[in-house]
C-alpha cells in the first residue's frame, strides 16, 4: 500500500482518537437537550458548561463571554455583522486587512452593500499589517478593527499586543480571527485587549462544525441567529453538545506547550529541506512570528496544481494558491497582497504539519518534492531560471 503523508493541516486536521472517545457518550447516552430540566438535560448542560469553562480559561476570558457556534465562518460572520448592526448609529466604519480569510472579506463586501464603509489595510512582504496605516485610518466613525491572528496561507502571526494597544487608545473594539493560531501561539484576550475572537475546533484535532466566539462583556452586539434563547440569547439553536465536548477535549490536548516546540522544529526542518531545492523561495516570515505548523513555497518553473497532483501521486497531500487550483481559477488574494508576482503565486504550494507529523514523514515529503519538482521542470519549456526570474519575478536570482 502506498503511504500517505498529510501536509494539509491548515485545511483541517484528523480528529484525535481521544476526542472521539470523549464525544461518544453524548450521542447515545447523555443525549439530552441542555435546555431540558430533567436528568438527561442537566447532564448535557453540565458537559456544555464544563467545556465552556475550559475554553474560556485557555484564552483568559470569563466563561459567560464564550458563545458556541458552528465554526470559524459563523464566528467571523457573527462578530462583524453583530457588531456592525448593533453600533450603526455610533459609526459605520470597520477596518480590516487584505489578508483575511474569505469569510471576513465576503462579510465585509456584504456590509459595504448595506452602507458600511470598510478599510482594507496593506501588509508588507512578510504579511505584517502596517500599524501606522491602522492608526491613521481610525476615525470617529470606526467601531471595529478585525485582524486575522495567524494567517492561514503564509503563517504570519500579527503583533496583537501592539494592535490591541492602538485599538484601546482610540477606543475601538478589536476582533481577531484566531482559527489558525488558537493553541499554536499565545492568545490572551486580556493582555492583548481583544474584544472579540473567533475560535474553531477542526484545526486542532477537534470535530468539524463547532467553534466559539469570544465576546467581551462590554461589546454592544446583536445576535444574528434568533432562536430559543440559547447561549444567553446571543446565538439561537440547540447546542451541539457532542461537538462542544469534543472541542473542549481537543483544546485540552492541544494546549501542551511541548507540541508547539515540536511542530516548530518539524516546520523548520521542512523549510530547510525544501528551500535547498534550486530556485525555491519561502513565502511569509521565518521564526517565532510564523505559525508553528505552516510553510509556503514558490517553486520556480512549476505550476502549483500540477505539483500538488504530482505530490499526491507520491502520497504527499498539500495545497496551492495557484489560479489553476481546481475549481476556482482564482489566484490567492493573500499572496497577491504580500506582493508576489502572478508567476510566483501560480507556483506556490502550502505545506502544513500537525503534532502528529513525524520527522520521517518530513524527510519523505522533502525527497518526494525534490523528485516531483525535478520531473515537472524537465517537461517545462521554462528553463533559463535566472533570465526569466529577472524578467518575470522582477528580481535577480
Amino acid at each position, binding site marked *: 500500500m502506498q503511504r500517505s503523508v498529510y501536509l494539509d493541516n491548515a485545511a483541517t486536521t484528523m480528529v484525535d482518537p481521544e476526542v472521539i472517545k470523549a464525544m461518544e457518550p453524548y450521542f447515545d447516552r447523555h443525549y439530552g437537550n441542555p435546555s431540558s430540566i430533567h436528568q438527561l438535560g442537566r447532564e448535557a448542560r453540565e458537559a456544555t458548561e464544563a467545556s465552556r469553562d475550559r475554553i474560556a480559561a485557555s484564552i483568559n476570558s470569563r466563561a459567560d463571554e464564550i458563545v458556541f457556534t458552528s465554526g470559524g465562518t459563523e464566528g467571523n460572520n457573527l462578530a462583524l455583522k453583530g457588531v456592525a448592526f448593533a453600533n450603526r448609529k455610533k459609526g459605520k466604519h470597520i477596518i480590516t486587512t487584505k489578508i483575511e480569510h474569505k469569510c471576513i472579506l465576503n462579510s465585509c463586501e456584504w456590509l459595504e452593500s448595506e452602507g458600511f464603509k470598510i478599510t482594507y489595510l496593506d501588509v508588507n512582504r512578510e504579511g505584517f499589517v502596517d500599524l501606522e496605516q491602522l492608526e491613521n485610518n481610525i476615525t470617529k466613525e470606526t467601531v471595529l478593527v478585525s485582524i486575522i491572528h495567524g494567517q492561514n496561507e503564509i503563517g504570519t502571526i500579527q503583533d496583537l499586543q501592539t494592535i490591541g494597544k492602538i485599538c484601546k487608545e482610540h477606543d475601538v473594539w478589536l476582533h481577531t480571527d484566531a482559527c489558525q493560531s488558537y493553541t499554536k501561539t499565545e492568545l490572551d484576550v486580556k493582555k492583548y485587549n481583544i474584544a472579540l475572537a473567533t475560535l474553531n475546533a477542526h484545526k486542532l484535532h477537534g470535530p468539524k462544525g463547532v467553534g466559539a466566539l469570544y465576546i467581551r462583556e462590554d461589546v454592544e452586539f446583536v445576535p444574528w441567529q434568533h432562536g430559543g434563547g440559547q447561549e444567553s440569547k446571543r446565538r439561537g439553536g440547540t447546542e451541539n453538545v457532542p461537538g462542544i465536548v469534543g472541542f473542549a477535549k481537543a483544546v485540552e490536548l492541544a494546549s501542551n506547550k511541548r507540541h508547539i516546540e515540536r511542530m516548530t522544529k518539524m516546520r523548520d526542518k521542512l523549510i530547510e529541506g525544501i528551500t535547498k531545492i534550486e530556485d525555491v523561495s519561502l513565502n511569509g516570515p521565518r521564526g517565532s512570528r510564523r505559525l508553528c505548523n505552516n510553510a509556503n513555497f514558490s517553486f520556480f518553473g512549476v*505550476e502549483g496544481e500540477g505539483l500538488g*497532483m504530482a505530490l499526491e501521486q507520491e502520497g504527499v497531500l498539500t495545497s496551492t494558491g495557484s*489560479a489553476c487550483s481546481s475549481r476556482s481559477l482564482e489566484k490567492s488574494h493573500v499572496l497577491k497582497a504580500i506582493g508576489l*508576482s502572478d508567476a510566483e503565486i501560480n507556483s506556490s504550494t502550502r505545506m502544513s504539519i500537525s503534532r502528529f507529523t513525524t520527522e520521517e514523514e518530513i524527510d519523505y515529503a522533502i525527497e518526494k518534492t525534490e523528485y516531483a519538482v525535478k520531473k515537472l521542470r524537465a*517537461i*517545462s519549456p521554462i528553463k533559463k531560471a535566472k533570465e526569466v526570474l529577472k524578467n*518575470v519575478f522582477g528580481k535577480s536570482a
Partner: protein
Amino acid sequence: MYSEKALEHFKNPKFAGEIKDANGTGEVGNVACGDVIKVYIKVNKKGILEDVRFQTYGCVAAIAASDALCEMARGKHIDDVLKMKYEDIVKELGGLPPVKFHCSVMGIQALKKAIEDYKKKR
C-alpha cells in the same frame, strides 16, 4: 475531478520533450496566466507529422492535454491535424472539468502555430 486517463497522461507523459531537428514549433500562454505550452513538430515530405512533442508549464489538465494532443496528431497529415478541435482532446481524456477546457484549447493553438511555423519555413 480528473479521469483516470487524464491522470495517466499527467503521470507518465509519453511525448514530453524537445525535437532537436524540429521543422516547426509553436508556443502559447505565459507564466503569469498559469500555463505555457510549447509544441515541436517534425513533418516529412508527404506532410505527415512524423513526430510531435511538447514542453508544458501548467496544471494537470495542461500537461495531460499536451500529451494527448501529441499522441493524436502523430502520424496524421497536417491538413487533418488542422481540423482537430479541442473537444477531440477533451473526449480523448475522458472529459475535463469545464474550467479546464481552455487548457486543451491552448494545446490546439500551440500545435496550429507549429504548423504555421513549418509552412512559413518551407
